[in-house]
């Protein structure tokens, strides 16, 4: 019994992280009807961006400079074409952004010498890392997805597959493929009650994921931008005709998605180490969204928890029977069962049918 509760608890905590991954897939799917297969790469990239800021990692100039230039080009582009700033504003702001990024990458942020408390360091580095991840997300959207606006969602989905390989290659080029030790050193909130033991890291992961999830929902359902996102998600043409710039909205959605994936990535890296090979964890989002329903935000939460629990149950009860690795397969078996009973997932949208 104690075993069971312990297992369920850890399952739920991990499940919350998966739920966040699911959410990232769902909002992109709702907005552009594409499945983002590059989620694993976004996850590593987001973690690395945070890593650079938090652990004061520096890059040699021949790696930092191209990244700075890329940021410059992108910023100028967005300022000029999307925000419609004038040329004299767009170029300098791009230059500033590019230069800042270059400096951070080349000289390092050296947060640790400025702030001694690791919690404070985390609080400072997290938003910056997430912002960076968001920018990468929007950059990717601009370059790969926007040209396909109005085309079939399938082509976007295929593009994300290729994009995944491309990003992975880039990450390997920049940071190599060895493992980076990743230890956030957050305050210890290990819960030990009688026979139960919940470790600090998974609790932090669960809390922060849930918090991020909640913030995204509040943003989507309580803000004016969220309303525009929901309108665009339903129909890009209609949104455009009523003055909502669908293209910019899509960019925002990708940015939010990349940002949330980064949160999940950082939490997952914190369980062990960070390395390129970790990207497969992102694909856990597939059973999550398929179980919960591709277009259901609540479904992502439930689906995430189901997958987390299922995985941890399999780990505790089935793997000891000699089936090593069953933990990774269990969610997919569950997925098959769910899809057999409910092809649209548990919470797929009830389509409004007019009579």
């Amino acid at each position, binding site marked *: 019994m104690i075993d069971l509760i312990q297992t369920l608890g850890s399952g739920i905590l991990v499940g919350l992280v998966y739920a966040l991954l699911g959410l990232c897939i769902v909002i992109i799917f709702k907005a552009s009807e594409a499945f983002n297969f590059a989620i694993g790469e976004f996850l590593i990239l987001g973690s690395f961006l945070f890593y650079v800021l938090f652990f004061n990692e520096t890059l040699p100039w021949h790696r930092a400079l191209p990244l700075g230039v890329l940021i410059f080009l992108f910023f100028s582009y967005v300022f000029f074409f999307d925000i419609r700033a004038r040329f004299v504003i767009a170029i300098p702001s791009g230059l500033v952004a590019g230069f800042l990024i270059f400096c951070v990458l080349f000289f390092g942020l050296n947060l640790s010498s400025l702030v001694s408390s690791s919690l404070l360091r985390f609080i400072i580095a997290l938003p910056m890392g997430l912002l960076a991840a968001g920018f990468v997300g929007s950059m990717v959207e601009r370059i790969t997805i926007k040209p396909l606006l109005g085309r079939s969602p399938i082509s976007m989905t295929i593009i994300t597959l290729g994009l995944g390989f491309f990003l992975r290659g880039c990450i390997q080029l920049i940071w190599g493929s060895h493992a980076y030790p990743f230890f956030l050193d957050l305050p210890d909130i290990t819960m030990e009650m009688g026979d139960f033991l919940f470790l600090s890291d998974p609790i932090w992961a669960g809390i922060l994921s849930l918090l991020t999830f909640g913030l995204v929902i509040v943003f989507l359902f309580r803000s004016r931008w969220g309303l525009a996102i929901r309108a665009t998600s339903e129909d890009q*043409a209609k*949104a*455009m*005709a*009523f003055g909502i710039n669908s293209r910019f909205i899509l960019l925002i959605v990708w940015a939010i998605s990349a940002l949330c994936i980064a949160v999940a990535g950082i939490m997952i890296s914190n369980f062990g180490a960070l390395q390129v090979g970790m990207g497969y964890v992102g694909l856990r989002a597939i059973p999550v969204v398929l179980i919960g329903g591709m277009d259901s935000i609540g479904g992502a939460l439930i689906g995430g928890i189901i997958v987390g629990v299922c995985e941890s149950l399999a780990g505790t009860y089935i793997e000891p029977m000699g089936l090593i690795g069953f933990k990774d397969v269990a969610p997919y078996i569950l997925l098959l069962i769910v899809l057999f009973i409910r092809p649209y997932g548990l919470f797929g*949208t009830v389509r*409004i049918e007019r009579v």
Partner: protein
Amino acid sequence: MLSIENLRVVYHDVISVLNGISLGVKDGEVLIIIGANGAGKTTLLRSISGMIEFYDGDIIEGDVKMDGTSIKGLDATDIMKRFDLTYVMEDRPVFWYLTIEENLGAASFSRWDKRVKADMEEVFGYFPVLRSMKGKRAGYASGGEQQMLAIGMALMTKPKILLLDEPSLGLAPLITEELFSIISQLNQTGITIMLVEQNAHAALGIGTRGYVVEMGRIVLDGTAQELLENEDVREFYLGSGKKERKSYKDAKRYKRRKRWL
């Protein structure tokens, strides 16, 4: 205020839909465009509003001008914001999964300010039925209510010129009548209206001038009264006669060409 000069539009680089249309919309009028299915009316409105690009169409010749400034090739949202031109798409362009209130809010996205709430009240003033169901999802509203909502959403954008694409499509005659009377009320508040309709009789009833479009060309124009009395218009669009069959044959030939491409 709006002038269209010799406009030619193709879809996917090959399907030619508008073959040189010229027309003008005068300040404060209700201009009616009538034409059969597939004549290119919707395409015309898409070209004016900048939505054509979204449907993979191109303006290959001609120009669209607002008060003398060319708006050809601008983004739909830019045209809407800078020239106060709002296009209400055909088939009741409301967001089904948002509530009525959210729909109105979404439509005011481009000009969100303190007055949005007051404008919403104004819309409810025109369409009282919407007020009573403002928390309901638009997808569950009836066709007439959806069309009213669509026009209400357009009003939230504060247009000077409103392009309406077949608002009466699929609505009961009584509701159509109500809708048209509101449209002409809106016109009296100073909004210029360009109304595309197949329901020629009702539309010409509230219009000042009209054009008849066929196969991407303007074949007839005149005041609403003239068109109502015109022999051809009566046979083609207001009643049925021998010529109906001829136009049917045209439509068929057109379809064949499309398939062949």
